[in-house]
């Protein structure tokens, strides 16, 4: 969530820090701040976006500094709460990404000793703690201070008394070292560094790093110096462009015909009727798997639910889907249980924690992610990349559809391995998948219809999404999209569940959106729509082109191409993405950077 950067070298530190923070802005953007050391430490903080900070920064000199862009977890958004935090004697500047669980007690102790606090944050505690422990050596002070806290951290610290060094430490919050020539970097992630260097060292939990402009030294959790091999990042971070679209999210929705192709590339063969993944994944799948656990958060969790429907249907294997934050408390684990983690960024803290637990209990692990080189890919036995290019809009769109297609391919593959389906079935699905980009183009071409429906929703207080079978998690995702970017309260339900409680919420002012596929669930959901209408709300149905029945029941119907039925769920999703987009746009919401949200949540 928060973005952090530290620099020491020959360039002008303020320029490097601001530039890097801009690249990290997607991680959190309530406020930002930098500290630059040039004889004394000068700190500047502003609320709002990085450009605010940039414009209000005076001309300062210095070749060493640290910077932070904040996504608030403790304390409101204001200048004092922004990082970096300075210690009472003003000689130590510190940045912290993470949560300090015992900060209250520590704060009280420090205040008793005479330390003066200026913010409401938990992070500030560390700055004063380091000052308290400081006896001339910054890394020792930081190490001792960190021993006293409970929680997670990625920390950067500088001291006026040691003007050449920056100390960084990591526990459950990402931190990488960028190796330069006559300069070195510490950052929360790689995009901040790529302009300057592509040689990085990944820090592991419990490690501490000291950088000055010519050297980097890493200590393990026992304070012993260790050597690490640099990783070369070949990946070209291209500055994502909106390419003429008004918002990244709209562009990414329109990327979907092409991203589906990218997911399929090299993995399906129509002539051979096969689905092939990379070697590590193939090996993982050859284990004697008896069950599958999918762990994920947010939109990826809903992708997991879709994966459950697909895998159970096509392979017969039992599948559980668990919220990563809950997995550590429950969750089945054994060696015949394949654990699949779904995480777009590969850095989601909850998912990483769950993945580590799974690995420790001996389960084979597989990650579905969009980011090559992410922490998740380095923990799991194998990984499948969704290859969808950077997704800048905070609300996931193309990465969600890519995830569900990957899960479909996995379902087909496991079905083949378990002999539940044959190559004919695979062939049928391959033909459907190849047609999918064309069907998505068709759906995108019906934008105007979706826009008109969005008009009817823009003033709603509450919207309900219902679906049956695989359309149930599609409805959950649809509701999430709407609430994420338009701030309208929305909830998804299994259509059959409404009558067990939620009916009480229905009024004529609560529109209901029904996701419909004309399969075995059709008759029942039509009946559900009847029940809903009887209680007042307007019903917007999403069904295929040849469904004539639905018009008798729904007030409005949005259509998608009839075939292939097996993939209608992905077409419905795209309609719901566009619907959410238009509603948010009509309400004037900040679509690419919704309030209070960050793209990759790296705190638990």
């Amino acid at each position, binding site marked *: 969530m928060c973005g952090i950067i530290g620099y020491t070298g*020959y360039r002008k530190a303020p320029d490097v820090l601001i530039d890097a923070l801009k690249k990290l802005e997607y991680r959190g953007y309530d406020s930002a701040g930098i500290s630059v050391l040039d004889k004394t430490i000068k700190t500047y903080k502003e609320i709002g976006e990085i450009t605010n900070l940039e414009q209000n920064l005076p001309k300062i000199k210095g070749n060493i500094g640290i910077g932070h862009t904040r996504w608030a977890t403790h304390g409101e958004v204001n200048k004092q709460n922004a990082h970096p935090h300075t210690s009472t004697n003003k000689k130590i500047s510190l940045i912290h990404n993470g949560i300090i669980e015992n900060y209250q007690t520590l704060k009280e102790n420090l205040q008793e000793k005479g330390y003066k606090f200026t913010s409401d944050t938990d992070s500030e505690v560390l700055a004063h703690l380091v000052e308290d422990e400081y006896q001339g050596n910054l890394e020792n002070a930081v190490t001792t201070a960190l021993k006293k806290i409970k929680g997670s951290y990625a920390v950067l610290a500088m001291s006026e008394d040691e003007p050449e060094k920056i100390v960084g430490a990591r526990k459950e919050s990402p931190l990488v070292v960028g190796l*330069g*020539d*006559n300069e070195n970097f510490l950052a929360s992630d790689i995009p901040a560094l790529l*302009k*300057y*260097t592509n*040689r990085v060292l990944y820090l592991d939990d419990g490690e501490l790093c000291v950088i000055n402009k010519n050297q980097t030294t890493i200590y393990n959790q026992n304070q012993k110096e260790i050597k690490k091999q*640099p990783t*070369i990042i070949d990946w070209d971070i291209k500055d994502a462009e909106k390419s003429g679209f008004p918002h990244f999210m709209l562009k990414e929705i329109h990327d979907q015909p092409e991203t589906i192709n990218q997911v399929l590339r090299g993995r399906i063969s129509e002539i051979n009727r096969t689905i092939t993944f990379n070697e590590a994944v193939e090996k993982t799948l050859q284990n004697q798997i008896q069950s599958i656990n999918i762990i994920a958060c947010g939109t990826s969790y809903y992708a997991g639910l879709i994966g459950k429907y697909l895998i159970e249907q096509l392979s017969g294997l039992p599948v559980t889907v668990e919220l990563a934050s809950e997995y550590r408390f429950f969750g089945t684990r054994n060696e015949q249980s394949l654990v699949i983690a779904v995480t777009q960024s590969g850095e989601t803290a909850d998912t990483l924690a769950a993945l580590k637990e799974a690995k420790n209990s001996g389960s084979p692990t597989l990650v579905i992610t969009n980011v090559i080189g992410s922490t998740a890919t380095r923990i799991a036995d194998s990984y499948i990349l969704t290859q969808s290019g950077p997704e800048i809009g905070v609300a996931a769109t193309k990465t969600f559809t890519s995830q569900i297609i990957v899960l479909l391919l996995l379902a087909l593959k496991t079905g083949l391995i378990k002999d539940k389906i044959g190559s004919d079935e695979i062939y049928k699905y391959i033909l459907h998948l190849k047609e999918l980009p064309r069907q998505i183009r068709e759906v995108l071409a019906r934008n105007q219809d979706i826009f008109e429906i969005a008009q009817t929703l823009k003033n709603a207080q509450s919207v309900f999404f219902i679906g049956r079978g695989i359309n149930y998690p599609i409805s959950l995702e649809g509701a999430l999209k709407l609430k994420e970017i338009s701030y309208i309260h929305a909830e998804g339900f299994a259509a059959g569940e409404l009558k067990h409680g939620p009916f009480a919420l229905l009024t004529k002012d609560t529109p209901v959106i029904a996701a419909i596929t004309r399969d075995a669930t059709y008759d029942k959901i039509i009946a559900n729509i009847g029940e809903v209408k009887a209680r007042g709300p307007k019903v917007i149905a999403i069904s295929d082109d040849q469904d004539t029945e639905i018009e008798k029941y729904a007030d409005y119907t949005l259509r998608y191409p009839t075939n292939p039925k097996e993939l209608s769920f992905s077409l419905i999703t795209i309609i719901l993405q566009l619907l959410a987009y238009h509603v948010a746009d009509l309400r004037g919401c900040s679509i690419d950077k919704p309030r209070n949200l960050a793209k990759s949540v790296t705190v638990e």
Partner: protein
Amino acid sequence: MKCVILAAGEGKRMHPLTYTRPKVMLPIANKPLLERNLINAKSAGLKEFIFIVNYKSEMVRNHFEDGKKWNVKIQYLNQGEPKGTAHAIGTAEKFVDNFIVLCGDTIFGSSDIKNIMQKQPSIGLVKVENPQEYGIVQTNSQKVVMIHEKTPEPFTDIINAGIYHFNKQIFNNIKKTQKSPRGEYEITDSINMLAEKTKIQAINLKQWRDVVYPWHLLDANEEILQNIKKHQTNATIEKNTTIKGNVKIGKNTQILSGTYIQGPVIIGENCKIGPNCYIRPNTTIGSNCHIGNACEIKNSIIMNNTNIPHQNYVGDSIIGENTNLGAGAKIANLRFDKKNIKATINGNKIDTKRKKLGAIIGDNTQIGINAMLNNGSIIGNNVYVGPGSLTSGEIQPNSKIF
């Protein structure tokens, strides 16, 4: 006086060998190009070096480290985006006074380097047989008038050799240099700017070798091998082996019975050679290689960890690292009509001007049993050439040919 060596380039015309290594790390007689330049520069008296790196810089850094092994000091500067020679040299500004610049992928001799060190500013010139491939230099009584762009009709056969001696003045010219028509900041433009105001000495070189395409490495390999000495002390050599001429064998290498080696040949460490194989002149074999029974290798470069294990013929070829030839796989190196062999690099068909050229094979490639590689074939990295197949032309990395 420091020596700046330009070592940042990929060397696209050296594909497939440069997909996994920068051009300066290509081995000639088992030492990287850059190391040969380092040794020659050190003999000329230079002790402090700055390597301008970028493409796969890790390989350069890992091999040379801080230079202690050669008793020199090496500093690295990352060029960042490849913007041209002037830009590369410009990155060294804060770290040098009077300094030498060498193109790391061209081999220079130490007495020439010593000559260049005497006068500044100066540039090295050399006479070549194909001046139309290079920038030619117009001089007037040993002073540089202008460096001209490559032209199909050159008025002289004296070209810019790629070695310079500058003082800090050049950085002013570099700052003012505009992008050339091919979109880069070229040091030749900076030099031309400098030549307008200052006398730049032109110094003729006696030794110079440029490697552009993979088969040029075979020429360079041959040249270096002429000067090696016999050395086989740390190797295990069984009875009934014949070793003639200058043959250098690395430590822990085993030469098994029946092996016939005609020097000059270099074999690296930890190799297993034989039994019953024939290694002919001008061959360099890396470390950890296995050359097995009934194999014949001639005038070739075999890199580390590669196996030519049973009944293979490899002539006038270059084979990368971690590559395997299946039993019976052979390489053709001569045309029936005995004309020049043409090879395709990056889609461009090139006359190699060689009557004999086998195959250029990249790293991590598997050649199946009884496979046949035609003369001039260029096989990329991670390629799978199926058993019994005939392959010609250029095969891209990660392909499968059945």
